[in-house]
């Protein structure tokens, strides 16, 4: 029975995530269009609702080409290597809490006794480590794709991706580590559970900022999208890919974007929790019995989680619409000289403040203040002198 539920869970979540990817592309195109004074795709179905399907069908029917000088097997395996980690990240992320033992209260139970939450596939003790491990595996697909294509643009793209990953992985790790220190657990379920009062973003404001930047670089989104850099490398590692193989890279990138948004929500924005959720669960249970109570609880928590994720996705699209791309060397300077020291500093802050300041709430506020000050100082230090303006050779009319 448990195994059957697990298989159904995996199946449903994989489908949901790939469906989410398809509609994320539509969401991005529509939002971008709106930000750019355009209409966006609105021909296929109402409001362009069938556009992702049209895109998928188009890509399916494209000719499948393997460049003659490519390293054939690596070339073929690389897209799969990119997309599989993007999918298995989802195993430890709690989307909500739908307890099919029909006891809403178990969701808020520290020990997790009697909890049979079907909105999280695996609640493992080292969930956070699993997340870190899987997100870093994803780069192999990109690197190998660039190398196996045997094309100069692709190779430059894959070199960039390796360099980028090394520069940002450490800062990402530091940010995540301070979250672990704050809540004293590696379990994603327990991290969410402890954010009933203050969300993680309060004590870890600095950690959250670092996570936001580093994870954007991790999933090669604008302004860190220099791995594919259409304008520079003509597509980077995907230059030589077409048809469904290209679609798989595309899919991996977007699913990873949703995944890091979900991770950010889980670590810093209370996951599926929001104030009053527990009261709602209790009220519904008293009103309509435990089954309805647990169901409402599950649906509402899932909706809250998705809304929060949507906010991060919008943020990502917004950034893409407004900012220029960073340069390769500056990106690494930024990663090594700013993000990593700040990440280490944040770990020290977290450790010192939680030891010295009694009480979780007070410590959180103190940590928030320290984080904000540090960010202000860092912003001030990194500020480069504004370049000189232009001069105007004045010229008066002759008449």
């Amino acid at each position, binding site marked *: 029975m448990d195994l059957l539920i697990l298989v159904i869970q995996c199946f449903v979540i994989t489908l949901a995530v790939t469906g989410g990817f398809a509609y994320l592309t539509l969401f991005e195109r529509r939002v971008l269009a709106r930000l750019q*004074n355009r209409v966006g795709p609105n021909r296929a179905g109402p409001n362009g609702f069938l556009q992702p399907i049209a895109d998928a069908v188009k890509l399916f029917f494209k000719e499948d080409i393997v460049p003659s000088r490519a390293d054939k097997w690596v070339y073929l395996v690389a897209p799969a290597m990119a997309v599989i980690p993007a999918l298995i990240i989802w195993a430890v992320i709690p989307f909500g809490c739908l307890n099919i033992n029909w006891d809403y209260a178990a969701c808020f139970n520290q020990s997790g006794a009697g909890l049979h939450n079907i909105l999280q596939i695996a609640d493992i003790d080292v969930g956070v480590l699993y997340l870190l491990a899987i997100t870093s595996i994803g780069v192999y697909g990109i690197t190998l794709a660039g190398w196996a294509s045997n094309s100069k643009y692709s190779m430059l793209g894959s070199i960039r991706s390796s360099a980028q990953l090394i520069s940002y992985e450490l800062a990402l790790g530091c940010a995540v580590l301070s979250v672990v220190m704050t809540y004293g657990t590696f379990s994603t379920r327990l991290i969410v559970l402890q954010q009933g009062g203050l969300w993680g973003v309060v004590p870890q404001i600095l950690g959250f900022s670092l996570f936001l930047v580093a994870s954007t670089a991790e999933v090669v989104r604008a302004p860190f999208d220099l791995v594919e850099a259409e*304008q520079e490398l003509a597509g980077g590692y995907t230059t030589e890919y077409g048809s469904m193989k290209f679609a798989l890279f595309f899919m991996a990138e977007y699913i990873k974007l949703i995944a890091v948004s979900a991770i950010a929500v889980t670590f810093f924005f209370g996951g599926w929790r929001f104030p009053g959720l527990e009261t709602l669960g209790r009220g519904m249970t008293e009103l309509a019995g435990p089954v309805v109570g647990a169901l409402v609880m599950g649906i509402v928590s899932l909706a809250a989680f998705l809304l929060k994720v949507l906010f991060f996705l919008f943020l990502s699209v917004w950034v893409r619409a407004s900012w220029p*791309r*960073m340069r390769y060397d500056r990106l690494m300077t930024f990663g090594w000289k700013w993000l990593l020291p700040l990440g280490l500093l944040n770990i020290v802050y977290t450790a010192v403040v939680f030891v010295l300041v009694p009480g979780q709430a007070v410590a959180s506020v103190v940590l928030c203040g320290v984080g904000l000050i540090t960010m202000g100082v860092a912003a001030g230090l990194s500020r480069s002198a504004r370049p000189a303006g*232009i001069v105007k050779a004045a010229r008066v009319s002759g008449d």
Partner: protein
Amino acid sequence: MAQTFHVPAPQEITGPALAGKTDTMVLNMGPHHPSTHGVLRLVLELDGETVLNVAPDIGFLHTGIEKTMESKTYQKAVVLTDRMDYLAPLSNNLCYALAIEKLMQVEVPERAQVVRVMLTELQRVSSHLVWLATHALDLAAMSVFLYAFREREQILDLFEMVSGARMMTSYFRVGGLAYPLPADFLPTAAACIESLGPRIDEYEDLLTNNPLWLERTVDVGVIDAEAAVAYGLSGANLRASGVNYDVRTMTPYSGYETYTFDVPLGRNGDTFDRYQVRMAEMRESLKIARQAWQRLGELGPGPIMTDDRKVAPPPKEEITHSMESLIHHFKLWTEGYKPPRGDVYVSVESPRGALGCYLVSDGSPKPWRVHFRAPSFVNLQGLAHMARGRLVADLIALTASLDPVLGEVDR
């Protein structure tokens, strides 16, 4: 004997690798690359991502315009000039018309002069908008691209209003303008000019203060004044290095000496200065256009074409009852006009720089030789100087900041 064309291999163009570097990579960028602004082929010699050498290879858009002109009468070649610098057809029209007017010593009516100034200044704004759009897009600030095209649309609407064509206008003819201005031109133009200023402020908000934009442009692709002059750069690319050279002020034409405007100059000659100079130029152009607009209102209706019947056709009503006019008309449309023997060189400030037209007449109705000094072509020479030792990403930024139009480079 069949002529074969030799397409040079990358190594032939870049020459041997620099001393001490044996593991360099030669990368073909273009002619089909998203950021080379048309069909420009850049052969790069790379060490990692550092550009050791760049060799621009041109000729992919060669249209033989100069040669074709030799077999057209002077009047018919006006449409060819549109197609050189397709982002600034009016500047090309003007340069060509001025050359023939100088050769034949034709007087152009005041009203036509003012319209010419106004439209070429608007043309400069529209061309700079395309430059800004593509420059921003090359650095992945993609929204600016669409905003700038929205504004350019208004200016193209004005061109369509006066000439019937949005891009290939052919509106300036020898002796004046092709058609009179439509009745609602002045109010529409005023609305257009007034709406553009605030829009340019918005772009500055998006880019000038953006740290990422500064990072990508400041100190990138520096060329000092001396080198800029030595390479023959002109236009905003030259002025960004601090050289005060603008054809409109140095050798004024079309009455530019009577307008009040500033010539923006940069200090460092980097990509950011070229950006700033062009942004300031757009504002200055709007200033000139506004002055011209005022003058048009003060001048009131008047002729827009010279009354020299050897150059300009007589009006229709005159042809119906004047024998001489009929003959003029017949001669103009069958044979064209014949400038005196001699040669002439005229230079105008096109959006891309000093656009020159050298014209040799042998006294026949067709030019013996026409040559255009294309600023894009000359500016492109500086590319290698600016790009050496920089990264590939910088090369993209500075190619965009040189603002080449390949139609003009190859002609």
